[in-house]
């Protein structure tokens, strides 16, 4: 009974901290972008703008939650919830430290993560369809094509890690990296996973489903108030998710000298979140056909070669 209560406590604390972190990232991102683009960014509310999130929250909660008359009402409401729920569910299998985590020892942990990211597509696609407007529909179609294509080699890119550690269990994968992080032997796998991860989170430079200069706001053009807020928080939560899974799979998870495990984990994921934001500041957006042909013609063959070479090396070098 006590164990169940502790588990529930950990789950609730984890959920709250992820959502809070995701909301706080909206401020961090704008401030960092400001620094990198040689401007100030939001710096008025609280010390150096640190209470900006609170101001935004007040604003977004009290705005009129307007459902346009031409939308498909049920699915229109359901879509933002699907995005947020699937992203948050994927956190269930992440082991933050040996003690903190909900189902870290699930024997299909990696596959569960892939399954949840593939279900996130529904939220975006249905939002585009249910909005019943052209910009939103084009955004939704782009999202469907982009996320399915990049999912394919996302799975293939992390198969190398699974082969080397011999398990889909994320705790075992972290423990296998005690001496050498997988980013060294699986460098190409890491690069491809990161690119696929950015496309899955549809962040810049791969935010074609939103593409504000050509599609308005893409799939969430018709959304207002907290429904838009849920897409927004879902996007930042998926940045946290992709950063965490990259750290767990390729950068040794909680492993690190001297300091407590949770500190190392937080440090590593903050670096990756910063990298995601830097990418937005630094790179222009590709054209849609470039994005698709890049995925299928370059990344897919490379990831298959990576799997083949990893397999050949594991078989030829006796452990």
């Amino acid at each position, binding site marked *: 009974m006590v164990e169940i209560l502790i588990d529930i406590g950990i789950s609730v604390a984890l959920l709250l901290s992820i959502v809070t972190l995701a909301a706080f990232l909206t401020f961090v991102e704008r401030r960092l972008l400001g620094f990198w683009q040689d401007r100030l960014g939001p710096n008025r509310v609280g010390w150096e703008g640190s209470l900006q999130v609170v101001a935004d929250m007040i604003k977004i909660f009290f705005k009129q939650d307007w459902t346009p008359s031409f939308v*498909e009402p049920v*699915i229109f409401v359901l879509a933002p919830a699907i995005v947020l729920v699937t992203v948050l569910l994927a956190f269930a299998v992440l082991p933050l430290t040996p003690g903190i985590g909900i189902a870290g020892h*699930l*024997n*299909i942990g990696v*596959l*569960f993560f*892939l*399954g949840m990211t*593939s*279900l996130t*597509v*529904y939220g975006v*696609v*249905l939002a*585009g*369809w249910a909005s019943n407007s052209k910009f939103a*529909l084009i955004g*939704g*179609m782009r999202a*469907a*094509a982009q*996320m*399915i294509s990049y*999912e394919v080699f996302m*799975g293939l890119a992390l198969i190398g890690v699974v082969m080397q550690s011999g398990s*889909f269990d994320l705790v075992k994968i972290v423990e296998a990296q005690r001496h050498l992080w997988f980013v060294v032997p699986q460098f190409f796998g890491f690069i491809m996973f990161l690119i696929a991860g950015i496309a899955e989170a549809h962040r810049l430079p791969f935010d074609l489903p939103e593409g504000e200069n050509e599609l308005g706001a893409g799939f969430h053009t018709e959304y207002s108030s907290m429904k838009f807020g849920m897409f927004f928080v879902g996007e930042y939560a998926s940045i946290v998710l992709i950063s965490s899974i990259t750290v767990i799979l390729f950068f040794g998870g909680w492993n690190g000298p001297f300091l407590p495990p949770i500190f190392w984990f937080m440090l590593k994921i903050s670096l990756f979140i910063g990298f995601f934001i830097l990418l937005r500041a630094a790179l222009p957006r590709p054209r849609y056909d470039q994005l698709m042909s890049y995925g299928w013609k370059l990344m897919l063959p490379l990831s298959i070669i990576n799997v083949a070479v990893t397999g050949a090396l594991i078989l030829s070098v006796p452990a």
Partner: protein
Amino acid sequence: MNAVFLISAGLSVMTTLLAITRTNPVHGLLFMVLSLLSMAGVFFSLGAPFAAALEVIIYAGAIMVLFLFVVMMLSLDKSSEKRERSWMSGKIWLVPVALACVLATEFGYVVMHTGPSSEPAHVIDAQMVGASMLTTYLPAVELASMLLMAALFAAYHLGRVTEPVARNKGAP
């Protein structure tokens, strides 16, 4: 695990029925996705977590998204819903219901004579699935790969560019 099995099995029957009877194609598709997800729950409770994960990733996460993609492109509206409703009434139900009754009788007979097995016999993990794929079921895997190859050629043939497409003047 028994409770998990019963809940997800019940859900999958219910959502499948709804998937058949909905007249709005997207609603039908979504109920089918739910049915596939609850099938994943059934697989998991029967001790096949790998099959459950594949059900979610491949069926629910990839194939159904492509279905949705096509339905979105068809831009079906109220008139198609009306047409669908007119198709799904009266005598059209007779044959499918009769066939389903035959299946249900057979199913009931099997369940009555074997009894439900409450606990999974043993958990089948990814390694065992992979090993049997490349030993016992190798011919099936090879046949499937040939089929996929044929589909790939067909797609390539359909999608090839025969003559250089004139560039649109207005395109960026």
